[in-house]
């Protein structure tokens, strides 16, 4: 019944899901960093940075991820010549471009989650920090963000789960991840339902534990007020 799985070795079923995991991890770390920077910009004392942060989030959130990912390949790579340090290795280049697109998109959501977390930190915390003479970077970095992060683990977990599912969009530029393998399999094999079930199961396995673990963590780490 599962014979067809062994017919595919470039990539194998596990290999394709490994690619999904790699896309998720690299994009997750990248968008956490870029999203935090964007959130810092959006609450910073410099009006220009605030404006940039707001504009970035509003523009990127309203463009379909598919448009962004396809653009990284047809626009960035083909026209702008951004080959991501792999001009000849198209597999690696596609992977890196997809990660770049996913970071650009997901960071906007990380930024918004963090910003709402910053709003949950009581005003007195920042006031006390300012009263003892800390400047903006210190107030944000030492007092506010550490508390904000702990209160947004739940929302960030949802962003991470959405990101895991969004990595399938990388299939549009030919990254050999799970959705692309499923497309190939389902077109060539007779067992439509079985293939659908196998891939669905794979994503349930990836997203369900993430949600459970991070939710547990968010309850444990939440700042008790």
């Amino acid at each position, binding site marked *: 019944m599962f014979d067809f799985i062994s017919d595919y070795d470039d990539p194998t079923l596990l290999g394709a899901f490994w690619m999904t995991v790699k896309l998720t991890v690299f994009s997750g770390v990248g968008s956490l960093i870029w999203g935090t920077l964007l959130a810092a910009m959006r609450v910073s004392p410099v009006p220009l940075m605030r404006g940039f942060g707001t504009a970035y989030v509003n523009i990127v959130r309203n463009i379909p991820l598919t448009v962004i990912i396809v653009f990284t390949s047809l626009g960035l790579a083909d026209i702008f010549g951004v080959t991501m340090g792999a001009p000849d290795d198209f597999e690696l280049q596609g992977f890196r471009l997809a990660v770049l697109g996913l970071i650009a998109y997901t960071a906007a959501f990380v930024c918004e989650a963090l910003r709402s977390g910053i709003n949950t930190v009581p005003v007195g915390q920042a006031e006390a920090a300012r009263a003892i003479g800390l400047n903006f970077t210190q107030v944000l970095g030492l007092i506010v963000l550490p508390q904000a992060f702990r209160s947004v683990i739940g929302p960030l977990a949802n962003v991470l789960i959405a990101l895991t599912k969004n990595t399938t*969009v990388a299939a549009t530029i030919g990254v050999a991840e799970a959705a692309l393998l499923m497309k190939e399999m389902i077109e060539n094999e007779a067992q439509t339902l079985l293939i659908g079930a196998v891939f669905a199961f794979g994503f349930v396995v990836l997203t369900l534990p993430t949600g459970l673990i991070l939710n547990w963590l968010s309850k444990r780490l939440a700042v008790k007020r």
Partner: protein
Amino acid sequence: MTSVLYDAPGPRAKRRNVILSVVFVAVLALALWWIYKTMDDKGQLEWSLWKPFTQSEAWTTYLLPGLADTLKAAALSMVIALPLGAFLGIARLSDHRWVRVPAAVVVEFFRAIPVLLLMLFANEFFARSTDVSSSDRPLYAVVTGLVLYNASVLAEVVRAGILALPKGQSEAAQAIGLRKSQTMTNILLPQAVTAMLPAIVSQLVVIVKDTALGGVMLGFTELLNSRGTLAANYANVIPSFIVVALIFIVLNFTLTSFASWLEGRLRRSKRSTGAVLGAGDVDDLNAAEVGGTYGTGADQ
């Protein structure tokens, strides 16, 4: 604008802010200059590539039909997903375990799966098991995938909307002797729908964005797919991407603004119970947490 995060700038802080602004502008200008220069080198700024967008042909042949298909798929998905989602959401609130549990399994399953997988599967299913013509199939597949996913998201919205209503509503309904089904259809659902409106509108943005997936993966002739045909005809890759992205931004920004306007209006309204499910609440919906502070507007 002052913030609690920093003091009102004194002379030194003002100077530092100016320096930071200048550095930031310099970096931004450098990036823009690089974009400009590369586009110029590759001939992407030539007027002949932009000219089509000032003439009617590019719009009537490619962009507008593409946009129409995007909107058609999005509208169909929303119209079908809404009643289905309401049904699933109410089923999850049932007092009977044998109704509640299967509904929860269906909702959690379809929420855990990427919408692209659902589209690919639906496409193959329609090709093999039905006689939907191959020209209609992409639309059917895209709508099926979007309906399955969004019905389960909307089920959570409906559930949260009903749970967000003050307890007094259902207690009062019980006190005057209404049945459970009457309480739901006459008292809770009408109020929940009002509370959910902003969340539903912002879910429409997600649907519009997801139609683009069908364009690339299934050959559905929506906006992004039409961009490909257009760019093949006029050889204007970058201009066509910019125009299509702008159309999406304007469309979705309008929807988002409408959603937050609705949210504000509902929150201010004296006639409502004050329960409003805002745009941001949809992302935060979580099985474990619905019924807590979500949707009450208290956490914002």
